[in-house]
């Protein structure tokens, strides 16, 4: 009996002793075994200081430990929106792939501090202070609160790994999200290789803008075919449509005046064709520097648009 108690105490002590480390096997974002010790790198069961039992008060600070400007733990510098080194030879055959990411290539998602070597003019604030989203509900042009509180890196990305492209969460703002993966060997960080479902990520918070009905730019009636049939007071630019719908030039291959916009799988226009998810340094001047009303940009709020002023319109519509 005594022996049993001793063994039990030892086992308990051993379990207690197993907090305090994190191993980066397979990178820290997935591939955990049943006996992983990685949890303790970010979580504390009983003495956490942040939400989700994080031992730190901000997932942004934690993520930037590797993904910040110094690149001390990763090449994806999301503060400056650069990929810091040439892409690794994943297959080990000396071939880095045709879509090799050049040194210091601009990341497709933008940057939180700078982008393209210029300070940003609007970002998705990732430090937990922003908890409202435009069109997070029925109507466009109004904001409402997010389900899970303040926006942070972990709102969109799953630090534990995910079957989605770019380890996007499978549930965002309470909504199921599925973004198809592309071929891992062909993937790089400066050329778009989104699979289908990209817009479902944005729609999880900005659902009122996820209007996919043909003719939505000319007809605001709800005929039941909308993905989201709430707002009938405004007209909306359709998304998840082929770029050729409006007889436009291919913004990805043809572009306009040297500017290009990315398309998703099967040449589809998605939210990210015009907007950057992390942050943009697009400059708003003249009429676009108005501000004050929903849908209006300003020098301090470029609405995450990829290009200066309304370049995102002109690259496709070329008026």
């Amino acid at each position, binding site marked *: 009996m005594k022996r049993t108690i001793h063994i039990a105490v030892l086992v308990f002590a051993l379990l207690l002793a197993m907090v305090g*480390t994190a*191993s980066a*096997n397979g990178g820290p974002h997935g591939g955990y075994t049943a006996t992983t010790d990685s949890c303790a790198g970010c979580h504390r069961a009983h003495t956490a200081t942040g939400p989700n039992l994080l031992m730190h008060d901000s997932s942004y600070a*934690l993520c930037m430990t590797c993904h910040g400007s*110094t690149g*001390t*733990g990763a090449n994806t510098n999301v503060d400056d929106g650069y990929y*810091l*080194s040439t892409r690794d030879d994943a297959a080990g055959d000396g071939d880095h792939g045709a879509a090799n990411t050049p040194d210091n290539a601009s990341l497709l998602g933008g940057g939180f501090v700078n982008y393209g070597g210029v300070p940003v003019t609007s970002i998705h604030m990732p430090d937990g202070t922003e908890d409202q989203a435009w069109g997070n509900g029925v109507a466009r042009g109004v904001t409402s609160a997010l389900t899970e509180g303040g926006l942070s890196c972990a709102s969109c990305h799953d630090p534990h790994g995910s079957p989605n492209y770019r380890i996007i969460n499978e549930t965002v703002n309470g909504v199921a999200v599925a973004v198809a993966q592309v071929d891992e060997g062909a993937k790089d960080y400066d050329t778009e290789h989104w699979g289908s479902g990209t817009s479902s990520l944005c729609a999880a918070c900005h659902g009122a803008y996820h209007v996919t009905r043909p003719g939505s730019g000319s007809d605001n009636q709800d005929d039941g075919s909308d993905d989201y049939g709430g707002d009938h007071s405004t007209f909306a630019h359709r998304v998840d449509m082929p770029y050729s719908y409006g007889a436009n030039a291919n913004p990805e291959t043809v572009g306009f005046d040297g500017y290009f916009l990315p398309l998703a799988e099967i040449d589809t226009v998605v939210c990210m064709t015009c907007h950057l998810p992390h942050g943009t340094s697009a400059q708003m001047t003249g009429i676009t520097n108005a501000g004050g009303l929903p849908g209006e940009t300003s020098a301090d709020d470029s609405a995450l648009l990829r290009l200066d002023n309304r370049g995102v319109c002109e690259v496709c519509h070329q008026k």
Partner: protein
Amino acid sequence: MPGDDADNSQEMIDPAEKAAAYQADGQTRAGEAGPAEAAMGKGPIGDSIQGSDLPADNAPHVVDSQEGGDSAATPAKGPVEGAAAAVVPPETVGDAPSPAGRVPELIDIGTPMTTLRAMTQRDWWTRPRLAGLLAVLLVSLTCTTTLFVRYLLRPAPLPDLLPLAVDLDYPPHYLFSVHGLDQPVGVAYSPQQERFYVAEAGGQRLIKAFDLEGNLLAAFAPPRTQASQRAPVYLATDDHGRIFVTDRLQGAIFVYDADGAYLDTILSPDLTLSKYIAELTEGVMAGRTFAFNRFEPEVHYYEASSVEHTLPAPGPAAWSPLGLRIDAQGRGLLTDVASSRHCVREIPADVIQSPSWYYFDPAYRVYGETGQEAGQLLFPNSAVADSQGRIHVVDGNNSRISVWDEGGEFLFFYGQGAAEGTLNLPRGAAIDEHDRLHIVDAVGQCVRVYDVSGAEPQFLFDFGAWGLDDGEFNYPNDIALDESGRLYIADREGNRIQVWSY
């Protein structure tokens, strides 16, 4: 019953008379009951006489606890349990010996063990005791004099003078913080200048120089760069007081003098900016200055006459310098995180210490490669050398320290796992003169100290915890040590350098 004299049936002897007799010869008759004993009808040996048993009068009585309990440590070493000290009036202790001519009575002292008790009180209370005290004094005086002489001959810390093993391994304590920084990630100390330098990752991303009180002396950055175009990370200082700063966005190492004046840029493993310009122009020219910014298509150089010239910028380099340390021999230990190969590049001391680098082409010793197996590295953040010549590489994303020998052969790694002292996300590291490796654990929010003087590294202790108060860390990233036992720790999200001390 104790204290109840009324139970005594014997006649009371006048204690005063008896006391007088004893005072006259100053001796105790061990075999004879003292006055109090006689008064209580108790024998001289074998009975314990409690203080409370004694008559409450002025007669001399057994003082059990007098002289520090010597009554229990009588020279009668035999099992004389509870025997009172030889009865002696207190005022007789230390009295003069018997007056001449007086012959002490012979006393039946009983068993041989009481022979010692027959010695005078003074003998074994005084002379051996004095002798002992003198001996102790003499020994301590000798020791002190020896130490003094040894110190005069060779001033050294006490643990080095004494042949005793002194425990050095206690954690340091917090001293103060230096504020006014924006996400400091790198720190280095310059013994020549008695300054420490800090690299910022936030705000204007400057290199800042401070004196030892924490006063800002200078702030500088690579010339012709914007804040959005630079990302200084780690720093190192050399014997000339120069500062080397790795830059992750520029992909180069910038070199400044002690006051922050820009000197040169190491662009690639075998090219510096001065060398590049010298090769493309008429050669080395005195008084020429230059500037490089990876985001500009041209490099600029200026003659002494301030005329500006440009040249096409060199192509991208096949490296990505991250952590740089210059060891006691002046050798540079650089970690390189180029995707093609994460490794350590050892730069010979004569190359690093050269006053200029027009002919920069070091013969590197390179070891390590990308991966998670033994002998492989994943984002090594720094590399330091111990006194045995082994290179300890902080293998950041593998949560361990990997060790190579002086010949470039991989030896072993340590610090992984779930035991006490294992590493979460080790970043900067520094080693002191006692071969204690200090490793900053960015996600562990502490500094872990290992003793690497032996064949196998031993975890000693860690200090610090997550928090915003003094002495608490919020994603620390780097550490530097000075020769006086002070530690400088870059507290990134705390926006400060914390100064600790042993």
